[in-house]
């Protein structure tokens, strides 16, 4: 998986989402989720990503409960939850196995996404871990000054300003610095090149052929056997 071109992995992400939409049986949707988890284990990333997968599962379970409570039948509710796990897990695989720079290169040079949008997308993804680390630092700093986040909703909301304030100010300051740094290094100055080679190789074409075959198989299976 790590050796595949970013474009192949982007197509794989779309393909898994399509498979999740095509499949209707709980067994099929469940197997798709298990297959993705096995894939993560095979490429040695399960240990790094299992907390995220567990959070997704928890969120999916919540979704099932809400759907069921709102009058949906149990099978449809569980299928919705499994579908969400399938579609979200493939994004975890994409992000865990692809460098942001390679993803930007593929989006701009192969998918012809304007570089400003591609850069915005990948930068937003890169900001998530940074933002979480900042959030932890701010929470600890305010905890040492007596912040507890306990009490009534109003009290908790006003207390929360002590966390949000520094976090927003630091995020704004960081994005300003980054924007200046990018401009000073020629961002948006004209036609650009990429140092990363993201071209497709034989293994990518084989994988793409496999994905086409699986999609065709699922489509036929649904039409003929009602999977």
């Amino acid at each position, binding site marked *: 998986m790590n050796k595949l071109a970013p474009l192949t992995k982007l197509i794989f992400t779309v393909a898994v989402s399509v498979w999740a939409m095509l499949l209707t049986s709980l067994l099929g949707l469940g197997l798709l989720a298990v297959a993705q988890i096995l894939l993560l284990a095979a490429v040695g990333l399960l240990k790094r990503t299992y907390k995220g997968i567990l959070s997704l599962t928890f969120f999916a379970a919540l979704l099932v409960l809400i759907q069921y409570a709102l009058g949906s039948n149990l099978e449809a509710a569980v299928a919705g939850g499994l579908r969400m796990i399938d579609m979200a897990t493939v994004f975890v695989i994409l992000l865990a196995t692809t460098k942001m720079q390679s993803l930007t290169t593929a989006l701009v040079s192969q998918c012809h996404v304007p570089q400003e949008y591609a850069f915005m997308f990948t930068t937003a993804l890169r900001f998530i871990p940074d933002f979480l680390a*900042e959030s932890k*630092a*701010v929470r*600890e*700093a*305010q*905890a*040492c*000054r*007596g*912040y*507890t986040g306990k009490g009534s909703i109003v009290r908790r909301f006003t207390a929360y*300003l*002590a966390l*949000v*304030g*520094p976090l927003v*100010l*630091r995020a704004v*300051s960081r994005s300003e610095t980054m924007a200046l740094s990018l401009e000073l290094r020629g961002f948006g100055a004209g036609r650009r090149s990429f140092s990363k080679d993201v071209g497709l190789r034989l293994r990518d074409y084989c994988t793409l052929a496999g994905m086409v075959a699986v999609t065709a198989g699922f489509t036929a299976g649904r039409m003929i056997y009602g999977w």
Partner: protein
Amino acid sequence: MLEIKEVSYCYQQGKPVVDNVSLTVEPGEFVAIAGRNGSGKTTLTRLIMSLIKPANGQIMLNGVDTSRQSPGDIARHVGYVFQNPDSQIFRDTVASETAYGPEQLGFTAQEITASVAEALERTGLTALADAYPRNLSRGQKQRVAIASALAMKPDILILDEPTSGQDAAEKENLMRILTDLNGQGKTIILVTHDMDILARFTKRAVVMASGVKVFDGTVTELFGQNANVQKWGLREPAIMNVSRNLTKYGISPELTAAEFSRQIIGMLQGGRA
């Protein structure tokens, strides 16, 4: 009094970042905690503040076990100043920013006014009480962070690399403030990489290496062990290095420029005489 008894902590199973560390800090001490990056010195201070809990061992603050206390409870006794003051600053004026801690601890309005005024005075910020903290210099922001901790009336002040990113004048000013606070009875625990500051301003040094406390003694004793100092990832102060190179001319190794100058002047005057 702060007592750390055989404390260990791991971020990952089997890889302790703090390994069986014991340490006692008496009231009124000025202690430096030194060591290379990743040696466990910041983790040790985070353990003291109850931001993380020890895997083994016990931390006692004024005779009370801190394992069940929150950082907010500890803040009544220990003020913590983070390396980056931007992590905490969120109010519109220096005075209101300084008042946040006392407000959280339930001080009365009169107590808050008095403690803020005192903290600003001790840190030389009275004239900047109405200034917008974000617009201040790095050194001034660091002083706001110190004032914010002082306003909570702690007995102990822990500072994590407070002089990083500051110019020489700001460093000097900050260290003078800490020396004055120590002179007024505050216990100071300073986490630092700066050996010149450690040599000039602190009395006791604790060195951490790979999570283990490898040295605990006076600064003079520390730099007397030249080989170990380098092994622990520390560098002896520049003035110590110069004076050590001049021992064959009768100069004895000195930790501070003032002592070194005194020796040179004495020698020159003796020579003239």
